[in-house]
C-alpha cells in the first residue's frame, strides 16, 4: 500500500485529510449552566500524520473526536474530510457518521459479541457492498496484520483484552478511511500490554501510512505516537506542535505543567546585555538566553521583548538541572548552594527536592548508584540555555 494512504490520485495525495475550522460545541449542564466543550478549535491533519489530542479529562478532546466522527453535532464551525464538507454550521450541512470517510476505534473496543472476529472485521466492507467471501478474505489478511492469524472464527468472549484491541484495530483500518480516529484505545489494558500495542500500532502505521486523530490523556503515548500533538485545555487548543517542541518549548505554563515535570520560577528582568539576560528570582540572580524573552523559536507568535523590571515565569525541566555534590565547588552564573529536602529513588533516576535560597527546585539525577540522603548540602546548577520563558508580563 502506498505511504500516502488510500488514494492513488497524485493530486489528492497532498490534500489535507481533515480540516477543522473554528469548531464550537456547547453543552448544558443540568441546572442550565453552559459549558463550551469545544471552543473555536482549528486544526488539520496531513496525509500519513498522526495528530494526537492530549489533555486532562474534561478538556473536550473526546467531544472533538466524536464531532469529527459525526457522532456529535457541533454548534458552529466547519469541517472537511478529504476535501469534502462534512459539517458547516452556516450552511446547515451535517453529514451523518455512516456517510463520512472515517472509522473509529473505541475505548471499549465496541466489538459485537454476536459476530465472529472475522465478521466483526469484515463488517465495514460488507456495508460497502463487498461479497461475503471477499470481505472475509480481506478480514483474515487484516487479522494477520494485527498479529492474530487464524483467530477469525473465534468470538469476542473467548479472547483476551489485548487481543480484542487488535481486532478492533483491524476493523477500524479495513475500509481504509481517510482519517482513522482513536478514542483512548490503549487505556483499558495494563502497562506492559499497552507499550507492546503502542509499538505494534507504530509498525502498522508505518506499513499502511494512514492519517489519524488520536485522543489520549497519557503523555508518553502522545509523545511516542504523535507526529504532532495538540494540547487541549478548556475546549481550546493551547499549543499545536511536534512532540519535541511541545516538551522543550512549551508555549504556556499550563502546557509546561501538563506535559512532563516542570520547575516554574517567577522572576523579574533586571538587565539585558547582548545575548544574555539577567533576572532576579527566589534563588538569587539567574541568567538566561536573551532571545528566550521574546518567545520560543518554534512558536510562531513572537512576543514583544519584556522591558526591564517586567515579571516573567521561567521553566526548567528537572532533568536539565545539575546537582553538584561538593557544596563548595562549581560557582559562577546560575549556581547556588542548596539543601536536599527529600529524595525519591525511582530506579533509572533519582528525584531530589532541593531548598535553594527561599525557593524549591526539583532536580532529577539520571543513573545514580548512590542517592543522597535528605539534609545533604549540595550545589545546584541550571545551564543558561535550558531555561524557557513560559509566561511574560
Amino acid at each position, binding site marked *: 500500500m502506498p505511504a500516502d494512504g488510500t488514494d492513488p490520485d497524485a493530486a489528492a495525495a497532498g490534500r489535507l485529510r481533515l480540516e477543522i*475550522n473554528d469548531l464550537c460545541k456547547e453543552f448544558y449542564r443540568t441546572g442550565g449552566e453552559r459549558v463550551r466543550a469545544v471552543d473555536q478549535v482549528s486544526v488539520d491533519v496531513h496525509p500519513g500524520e498522526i495528530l494526537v489530542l492530549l489533555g486532562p479529562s474534561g478538556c473536550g478532546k473526546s467531544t472533538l473526536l466524536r464531532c469529527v466522527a459525526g457522532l456529535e453535532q457541533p454548534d458552529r464551525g466547519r469541517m472537511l474530510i478529504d476535501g469534502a464538507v462534512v459539517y458547516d454550521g452556516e450552511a446547515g450541512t451535517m*453529514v451523518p457518521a455512516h456517510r463520512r470517510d472515517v472509522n473509529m476505534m473505541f475505548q471499549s473496543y465496541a466489538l459485537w459479541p454476536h459476530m465472529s472476529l472475522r465478521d466483526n472485521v469484515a463488517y465495514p466492507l460488507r456495508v460497502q457492498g463487498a461479497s461475503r467471501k471477499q470481505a472475509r478474505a480481506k478480514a483474515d489478511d487484516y487479522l494477520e496484520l494485527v498479529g492474530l492469524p487464524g483467530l477469525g472464527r473465534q468470538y469476542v468472549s473467548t479472547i483476551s483484552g489485548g487481543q480484542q484491541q487488535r481486532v478492533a484495530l483491524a476493523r477500524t483500518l479495513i*475500509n481504509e478511511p481517510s482519517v482513522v480516529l482513536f478514542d483512548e484505545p490503549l487505556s483499558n489494558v495494563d502497562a506492559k500490554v499497552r507499550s507492546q500495542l503502542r509499538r505494534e500500532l507504530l509498525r502498522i502505521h508505518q506499513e499502511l501510512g494512514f492519517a489519524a486523530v488520536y485522543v489520549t490523556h497519557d503523555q508518553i503515548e502522545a509523545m511516542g505516537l504523535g507526529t504532532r500533538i495538540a494540547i487541549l485545555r478548556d475546549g481550546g487548543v493551547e499549543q499545536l506542535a511536534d512532540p519535541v517542541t511541545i516538551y522543550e518549548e512549551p508555549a504556556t505554563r499550563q502546557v509546561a505543567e501538563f506535559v512532563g515535570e516542570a520547575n516554574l520560577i517567577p522572576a523579574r528582568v533586571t538587565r539585558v546585555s547582548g545575548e544574555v539576560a539577567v533576572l532576579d528570582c527566589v534563588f538569587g540572580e539567574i541568567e538566561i538566553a536573551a532571545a528566550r524573552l521574546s518567545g520560543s523559536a518554534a512558536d510562531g507568535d513572537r512576543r514583544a521583548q519584556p522591558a526591564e523590571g517586567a515579571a516573567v515565569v521561567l521553566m526548567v525541566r528537572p532533568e536539565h538541572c545539575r546537582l553538584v555534590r561538593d557544596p563548595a565547588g562549581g560557582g559562577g552564573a546560575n549556581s547556588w548552594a542548596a539543601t536536599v529536602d527529600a529524595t525519591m529513588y525511582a530506579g533509572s533516576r533519582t528525584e531530589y527536592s532541593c531548598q535553594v535560597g527561599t525557593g524549591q527546585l526539583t532536580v532529577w539525577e539520571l543513573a545514580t548508584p548512590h542517592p543522597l540522603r535528605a539534609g545533604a548540602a549540595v550545589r545546584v546548577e541550571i545551564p543558561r540555555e535550558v531555561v524557557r520563558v513560559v509566561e511574560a508580563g
Partner: protein
Amino acid sequence: MGDNRTATATRPARPGAPARRSGAAGRLGRSPFSLVTALIAVGVLALVLFPLGRMVVRAFEGFGHQRWESLVGAPWFSGMLRDTVVVVGASAVIALLVAALLAWINERTDAGIGMLGDVLPLVPLFLPTVAMAVGWVLLANPDVGLLNGALGVVLEPLGISYEFNIFSYPGLILVYVLNLVPFAYLPIAAGFRSMDPSLEEAARVSGARASRVLRTVSLPAIGPAVLAGLLLVMVVGFALYSVPVIIGTRPDIDILAVRIIRSIRQTYPPAYDDAVLLSTMLLALLLVLWVAQRRLVGSGQFARIGSRSTGSSRIELGPWRWPMRSLLWLYVTLAAVLPILALGIVSFQTYWQPDLLASEWTFAHYERILFGYPLGQRSVENSLFLGLVGGGITVLVAALVIVYAHRRRNLLGKVADAVAKLPAAVPNTVLALAFVLALAGPPFQLGATLLILALAYFVVYIPYASIASEASVASVDNSMEEASGVSGAGEGRTFARILVPLMAPGLFAAWALVFVRILGDLPVAVLLGTGRTPVIGFVLLDVWDQGIFNRVAALALVMTAITVPVVMVMMWLGRPRWRRAKRARAYRARA
C-alpha cells in the same frame, strides 16, 4: 490559524469518490429508516389515543352531569366500589409483602438458588391467568374441590370438619395475590440487586447487628422500589378481569372490571353508557397511580441481569435457610403446580369429583372441545395466529419505537416513548370497550374481524414489549451502535444487524410474554371476539357459562399446554450466547 484555511475549505467534494464518501450532505435524521420509524410512532400514537379519546369524549358529552349522577346513585354502585377497593387493596398489600420476602431471600440471603430462584417467582407471568383461576375453583370449591377431598381424608378421622371455600373474600384475594406477586417482585428484586452490598457491609463493620442493618440500611435503600412495586400492583390489580369473573361472580363480590363488561355483555340492551362512565372512572384512577409510579421510580431502577451480589456478602440464615428456601417452592406450587394439576385431573374425569380412586377417566372432554365444538378448533388457530404473528409484530414495533426514542431525544421520540408505555395504565377491559366504540362500527366497520382483535392486542400489550425493549436497549452499550455507524452502516442496517441481535434475549422474552397474555386473554376476547372470529378466551367463557367444568378444565389446559412449549422455544431462540463476554466488558468499562 483559521483565516488562511477558509480558501481551501470551499473546495467541492472529490468527484471520483465512492458513494459513501461523496458526503450526500443532509441534516441529522432524515434517513428513510428514521422516516419510517417516525411514521410508525405516529401510527402507534393514533391507535392508542384515538379510541380512548373517543370514549372519554363520549363520557363527558351531552348532559353528562345527569348520567354521572344516575350512575353514582345506582343501588349497586357503593357496594361495587367497596368490594373493589377491599379486594384490590388487600391483595396489593399482601402481594407486596410476599414479593418483598421472596426477593429478599433470592437476592440478599444464602437461601437464594441462583438463576432458578430468579425465575420461580415469575412463572405465573408465563401461564394464562384464567387457567390459574379455573384451577383454583377446581381445587377449593366447597364439597367437590380436590383440596377439600384431600383435606377430608386427613381431617375426618380426627373429627374435624373444615373446608376451603374459594368463593369468598379470602379465596378471591388468595388468587389475586398469587397473580400479583410477580409484578411486585420485579422492581423489588431489582432494588435489592442494584443496592451496593458494601453499604450493608459498612453498617456491619460499624458494629450494627443484622436486624439493625436491615432496618437502618437495607430497607431505606429499597424504599423507592417497594413503593414502585405497590403502585404497579395496584394498577394491575384494578385491571384484573379473569380472576374476579371466574371466582367473584358466584359469591357476588362485585368488582369494577367485571361490572364494566357485564353492563355490555349481560345487559339488554347493552348499557354502553354505564360501561363508558365506569371505564372513564377507572382510567382516571389508574392514570393518577401511573403518573405517581413513573414519578417515583425514575430511571435506573431496573438492575441488569447478571449483576448479582457475590455469595460472601449475603446474609447467612443458618437453620432458617431451608424453611426460607421452601417458601419459593411453596409459591410456585400454589401459583402454578396445584392449579395445573387440578386442570389435568378434572379434564380427564368423566364427572368432576374429589375422590380420585372412584373416578372414571375419559378423553371425551378434549374431543368435545377441540372437534365436537364448532368454535373450539378455530379459536385455537385464531389465538395461535394472533399470539405468534400479532405478538411478534407488537414486539418489533415496540423495539423500533423505543430505539428511536432512545436515540433521538426529540419531541416525537419522547411522545412515542410515553405513548408506547401509556396503555400499561389502561386496563384491557377499558381498551377493548374503547375499540368496540371507536372501530367496530362505521366508518371503520372492523367489528367481527381478526384485525380489530389484532389491533386491540397490539395496543394492550405494546407496553410490555416497550418496557422489555427499553431494558434491552439500555443493556447494549452506545458504542455498539456508534461503531456500526462509523463503519459506514446506516440506521436500518445498524438496527437489523447490530441492535436486534444484541437485544434478542429481551425481545424474545417479551414475545413469549405477549404470546402467553394474548392466548390467555379474556376481556378483549369477550368484547371483540365473535362467533365468526372466536379466540380461546371467548370460547372458554362461553363454556364456563354453560357450567360444564370438565370442558372448561380441558380448554384451560389446552391453553396452558400450548404456551409452555412456545415459551420454551422462544427462550431458547433468544438465549444469550455471549453474556459472559458482555459482563466482562462492562466490568472493564467501569474500572
